[in-house]
């Protein structure tokens, strides 16, 4: 990975992302195969490796017995950082995650977004070369998510390398320069979000909903259209029909010409969700 790069693992829950993260973070034994992180072996050089990593676990593992600032202080001491350095760095980090006013507050009453920002500050206390973020915005409300994404983007601009897992395709598109798509412990594709979409699916998607029982007929009708026409591929989901197309407007015209009469009709840009669906035949979030 290049310095300042953000690399993502995208996959549904249970795809093996957290396990992979724990092995990379040297908090879990490596089950099989060869793994080197920052040139170190997590098994035998775990201490040295963890000293150079920052970890944002999926669950906020903040210390409830300590204040906001003490959470950072105590954690910094785990890295043997001198107190003078820590005091300086804590002020800076609290500013960065916008928690300066809460520095002497207890941890428990903080909102979910604040807690997550504090965990991010904690992960940065040792000025890590690589930050591991496991599902950084799971469980946060939309506003808090956007605020967090903005902070992570700032972090990237400062040259901090990030490795993150997510099962939100919008998060992966927002944050990752490069990502792998994981499914059932396997990597099924790798590349930048744009390249993945370009390689595996068409530019636009038409989403159609029909009355009960009419979806299959409509899929069959659309499927009979010529190759090279507006319809590249059709994906039938339980509740809707996805029509992959290079040109959304042309596809809508085709639907009307065929008198398919959908209940609702929507064109959107193809996303990583579609890539995942294409590669695994399943949806990211069930």
């Amino acid at each position: 990975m290049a310095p300042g790069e953000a690399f993502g693992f995208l996959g549904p829950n249970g795809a093996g992302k957290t396990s992979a993260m724990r092995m990379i973070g040297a908090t879990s034994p490596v089950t099989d195969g060869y793994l080197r992180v920052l040139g170190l072996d997590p098994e035998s050089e775990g201490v040295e490796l963890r000293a150079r990593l920052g970890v944002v676990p999926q669950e906020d593992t903040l210390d409830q017995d300590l204040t906001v600032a003490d959470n950072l202080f105590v954690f910094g001491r785990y890295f043997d950082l001198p107190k003078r350095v820590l005091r300086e760095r804590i002020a800076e980090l609290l500013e960065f995650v916008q928690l300066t006013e809460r520095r002497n507050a207890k941890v428990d009453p903080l909102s979910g977004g604040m807690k997550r920002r504090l965990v991010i500050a904690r992960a940065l206390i040792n000025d890590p070369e690589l930050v591991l973020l496991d599902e950084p915005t799971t469980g946060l409300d939309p506003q808090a998510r956007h605020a967090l994404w903005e902070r992570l983007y700032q972090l990237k601009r400062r040259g901090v390398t990030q490795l993150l897992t997510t099962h939100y395709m919008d998060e992966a598109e927002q944050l990752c320069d490069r990502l792998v798509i994981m499914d059932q412990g396997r990597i099924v594709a790798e590349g930048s979000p744009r390249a993945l979409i370009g390689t595996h699916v068409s530019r636009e998607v038409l989403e159609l909903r029909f009355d009960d029982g009419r979806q299959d007929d409509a899929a069959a009708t659309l499927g009979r259209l010529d190759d090279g026409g507006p319809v590249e591929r059709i994906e039938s989901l339980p509740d809707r029909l996805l029509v992959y197309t290079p040109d959304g407007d042309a596809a809508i015209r085709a639907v009307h010409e065929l008198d398919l009469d959908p209940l609702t009709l929507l064109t959107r840009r193809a996303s990583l969700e579609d890539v995942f669906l294409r590669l695994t035949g399943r949806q990211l979030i069930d």
Partner: protein
Amino acid sequence: MSAASASAQRATGGWRITPHRPLGRSVRLVERNLRAMRRGWTLFVSGLFEPMFYLFALGVGVGGLVGEVVGPEGELIPYGVFVAPALLAASAMNGGTYESTINVFAKLKWGKVYDAVLTSPVTPREIAVGELIWALMRGWVYAVSFLVISAVLGLVPSWWGLLALPAASLIGFCFAGLGLMVTTFLRSWQDFDLIELVLLPLFLFSATFYPLEVYPEAVRWIAQVSPLYHGVELVRGVMTGSLSWALLGNVAVLAALGSIGLSVAVRRFGRLLRS
């Protein structure tokens, strides 16, 4: 941030890890607990009172009924002088056990404190050792205050009594080591009732309140199996100034049990946390 970080990097000399210090980063856990205690110190201080209440009730109250008993060297000593060392030993046992069981279990299962620690360079072994040191430090504070009160009440006839402090630490080490080991086997809070069911008979039947001679011959050896019995003998020996080689045997038993507990705990701690 980058400028300050760079200066911090210089200040720490980059990331040189020094694994060869004897206690490693265990002391960092102690620092953590000290900071955490800024909130819970009242509870800590209140822990001083229970053994004191027992001291007054038994040393003064029951002491008035009993009068004198046979001490370690066969001489008659006031009951208060006899029972105070035992209560000090028992409070060292309770301190070491509670700190290493309930508090560690809470951090392990409920507070998830160690999950975060593990993402830092601190190792499971250092966590276990750190918690043990912490338990000893707390026990030390309790032992010092208990010894002072006993001396004020005139229950410490010899200057050898100062040796009760290292003796209390040894008892704390023994029970904190065993306690950490037991904690790695606990499943839920309900198991703590079982720990209490073990501690209470130890407290009551380890020659704490009367010499073993009260028991029939056949029962005495059972009491000698109790680790607290060895603690009581040791503290009573030094606090009454009756030093003998037999005390080294008590020291050996306590040290051995504590070491066994700690080494099992360290091994299981790693497996429990790094899964």
